[in-house]
């Protein structure tokens, strides 16, 4: 109990700016909240400081809501309310309120600086919250705004802390605070440096450089040493980071190209409409999510998973249609399939453009695909991570289909010797249609994944078609492993070139390298051998 008052006192002190709000009384909290309705940004800022100054836990929900943009003013009744997920509640009491009809909610808007103030204000009040996540963000708040006055508070929190992550962060925050406190003893400050390095993660460098600026000379060497160490490890990690970037870029290329490895690599159809299949996959995802958002909002997080089979079927079906309608007349004339499918791609693009309009469509990222994790200094974004996983799954599924299923067997039979296959009673037209459908379906799957990193616009496909062909040709036509290795090689090479050559030059270099490579190995990385290829 006593500690609680002590904390409040400290807090109040800590947030006493400007001074005239020193006599802030808990009683006028409602008034202040009410005042938010008509306040402009400057007034709002002072009100926030003001509310924070009361140190009353009751204001936490208000500030949280304000920061999160969930605080509304009902124009008609003039009430300030919190727009929750399910219900509208009163900011102070937290009870549900019924504004009745005629309610006209308008959001109380905040800007960056205000958001920062709120975060730091909340930090103090939520450091003892029961929810570790809240405590974590609170600790972050302290990390961001170190202030000596908070040290006892931090100490207490650290003593009480159970969650190791939060604890590490709190200790870091404490270390930072000491380090940046000019009153604190040199020894303490020096001792604090390792704490910062240990706890602050990627921000450590930022903090230390900041501290270095106004550190006394006797402190400098320690900080500089620590910085040097960090820089070194960062150099190592940045190399690994590049590999990761390369892998994730490679997996995108793989996804985009693997369908082509079937239609072009296995069937020999120069499928210029491949990119459009990807695009259609993306649009299917968009539609699926649209339906889900309107009818079953609960499933929103799984919309991508639901979209996968749908996209596969839709694009697969379209693929079969194309094969039956156009491609089958052109077998043995690969260069002419190029022309026909190019025309087809124009039509598909324009169709989508006239149905959905030329502008980008929105696919919301599911929560499990947004944000990133800090894997020992490697920043790994979840969407990239899942796409890598997904690419691998698709690839190995495909291998399985081709090598372990009757359909796969027939596909290989037909592509290796059409006449022989048909004379052995394989229904070649059916197999052709299925093969092309499979390739297109996989393109559709790629489309689903691409919704997470790229525009969903009619031009989506064009951005990938050339790269896809490069990957397949580089890897060696008709060889899935070639496509696999090719995609990853190109991805990683690209990412290692980019820092030195820049994005544009890097891409150019890659293209030139591919051209040169093909001179050396005219059949690509993993060329098919034997006579089978000749038919």
């Amino acid at each position, binding site marked *: 109990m006593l500690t609680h008052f002590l904390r409040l006192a400290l807090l109040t002190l800590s947030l006493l700016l400007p001074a005239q709000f020193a006599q802030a009384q808990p009683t006028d909290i409602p008034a202040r909240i009410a005042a938010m309705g008509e306040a402009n940004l400057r007034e709002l800022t002072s009100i926030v400081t003001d509310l924070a100054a009361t140190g009353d836990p009751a204001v936490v929900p208000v500030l949280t809501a304000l920061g999160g943009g969930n605080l509304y003013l009902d124009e008609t009744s003039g009430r300030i309310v919190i727009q929750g997920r399910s219900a509208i509640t009163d900011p102070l009491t937290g009870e549900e309120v019924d504004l009745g009809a005629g309610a006209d909610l308008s959001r109380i808007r905040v800007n960056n600086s205000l958001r920062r103030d709120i975060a730091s204000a909340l930090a103090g009040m939520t450091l003892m919250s029961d929810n570790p996540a809240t405590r974590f963000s609170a600790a972050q708040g302290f990390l961001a705004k170190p202030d000596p006055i908070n040290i006892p508070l931090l100490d207490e929190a650290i003593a009480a802390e159970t969650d190791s992550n939060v604890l590490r962060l709190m200790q870091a925050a404490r270390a930072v605070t000491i380090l940046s406190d000019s009153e604190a003893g040199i020894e303490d400050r020096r001792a604090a440096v390792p704490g910062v390095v240990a706890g602050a993660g990627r921000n450590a460098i930022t903090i230390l450089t900041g501290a270095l600026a106004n550190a006394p000379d006797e402190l400098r060497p320690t900080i500089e040493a620590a910085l040097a160490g960090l820089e070194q490890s960062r150099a190592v990690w940045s190399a690994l980071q590049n590999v990761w970037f390369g892998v994730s870029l490679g997996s995108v290329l793989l996804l985009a190209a693997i369908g082509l490895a079937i239609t072009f690599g296995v069937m020999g159809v120069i499928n210029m409409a491949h990119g459009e299949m990807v695009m259609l996959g993306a649009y299917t995802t968009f539609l699926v999510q649209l339906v889900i958002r309107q009818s079953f909002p609960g499933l929103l997080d799984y919309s991508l998973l639901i979209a996968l089979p749908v996209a596969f079927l839709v694009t697969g079906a379209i693929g079969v249609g194309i094969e039956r309608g156009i491609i089958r007349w052109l077998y043995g004339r690969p260069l002419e399939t190029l022309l*026909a499918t*190019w025309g087809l791609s*124009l039509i598909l693009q324009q169709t989508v453009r006239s149905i959905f309009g030329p502008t980008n469509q929105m696919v919301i990222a599911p929560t499990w695909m947004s944000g990133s994790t800090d894997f020992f200094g490697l920043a790994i974004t979840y969407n990239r991570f899942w796409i890598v996983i997904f690419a691998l799954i698709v690839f190995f599924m495909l291998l399985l289909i081709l090598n372990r299923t009757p359909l796969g067997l027939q596909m290989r039979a037909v592509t290796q010797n059409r006449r022989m296959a048909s004379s052995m009673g394989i229904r070649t037209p059916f197999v052709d249609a299925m093969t092309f459908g499979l390739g297109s379906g996989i393109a559709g799957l790629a489309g689903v994944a691409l919704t997470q990193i790229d525009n969903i616009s009619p031009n989506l496909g064009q951005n990938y078609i050339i790269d896809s062909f490069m990957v397949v040709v580089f890897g060696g036509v008709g060889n899935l492993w070639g496509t696999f290795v090719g995609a990853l090689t190109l991805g990683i090479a690209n990412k290692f070139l980019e820092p030195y050559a820049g994005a*544009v030059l890097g891409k150019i270099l890659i293209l030139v390298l591919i*051209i040169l490579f*093909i001179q050396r190995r005219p059949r690509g990385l993993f060329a098919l051998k034997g006579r089978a290829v000749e038919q």
Partner: protein
Amino acid sequence: MLTQALLRALDKKAVWVIGIFLAVAILVPMANLLIPPGQFGHVPTYMVSLFGKYLSYAMLALALDLVWGYCGILSLGHGAFFALGGYAMGMYLMRQIGSRGVYGNPVLPDFMVFLNWKELPWYWLGFDNFWFAMAMVVVVPGLLAFVFGFFAFRSRVTGVYLSIMTQAMTFALLLAFFRNDMGFGGNNGLTDFKDILGAPVQAQTTRVALFAATAVALALSVLVCSMIVNSKLGKVMIAVRDAESRTRFIGYRVEYVKLFAFTVSAIMAGIAGALYVPQVGIINPGEFEPGNSIEVVIWAAVGGRGTLVGPIIGAIAVNLGKSWFTTAFPEFWLFALGALFIFVTLFLPKGIVGLWQQIFERRRKTPAPPSPSQSADVERGKDPASFSNPQPRPAE
């Protein structure tokens, strides 16, 4: 020797095509300059430059057909040669602006001035001289084609692989020319030309002259092409197209044959580009778009590949359609274009000319060019000469 070759080129009825374009080169300018506007038969200047543009496209399509229709090399990068020729011309025109640019800088083009370039990059030197520029129009595309072709054909990169590589080439150039640091004006390219050989580019007479020049150039390229295809070399080219390795076995160096055709064709494309730029008044990296190169193939296919007049007809027809559609049905012209591509490949494998032959010459027993499926057999690797070829061939 040359004269004989010329005669051989002419006695084939290519003389007609040549004649027509020479006539056009004279009549259209007259119709524009002599017949007063409004009167019947007057060709407005607008139409003149429009058709000038089409003719340069036709020349490009002809160049492509020389390698594709006759030598079986499907190049999806001819737009690059066209654009390079165009840039060479554009650089000359930029230098001609002199101090009339918005900043009045006598040497630097405007885009260099406001990007704070201090002096002219070395590769811009000499382009103030018309003849040097014209030399570059020929040399740059020719050289690129020669080097690219030399390596590609020597290491026997064929069929689909070659096509994709040419795409890669033009795509790489596209990205390169987009870069402002390259000093070619980046995305904006080269524009706002003032005059060519002292004559203002916009002037009616200049436009008409440019048109005439294009028509003559086209006639000349038809002459050159017909000279080539009617010579024994032309026959060898067709042999290469139909049965590449068989041609090797009777002792011809296939790679050189291809290299010759590819280089000549690239040079023609470059010249076409050089004639195109002053008539449209701009050259920018968009010309390197892989899509453009593919469209050129379509023109040739629509008109009828493997003939000299086919690509010309195709280029003019498709572009007329394009101009008309983009105004008449802006929303739908892509549908039309796409449908055209599919229709032609499915139902008109020999293009308009082929159709023409089918309709008017069914009875006459005239040797027809090989049907695509025949030559396709070859593409499929059924070329018997390669039956026991242990070298893997592309799974076409």
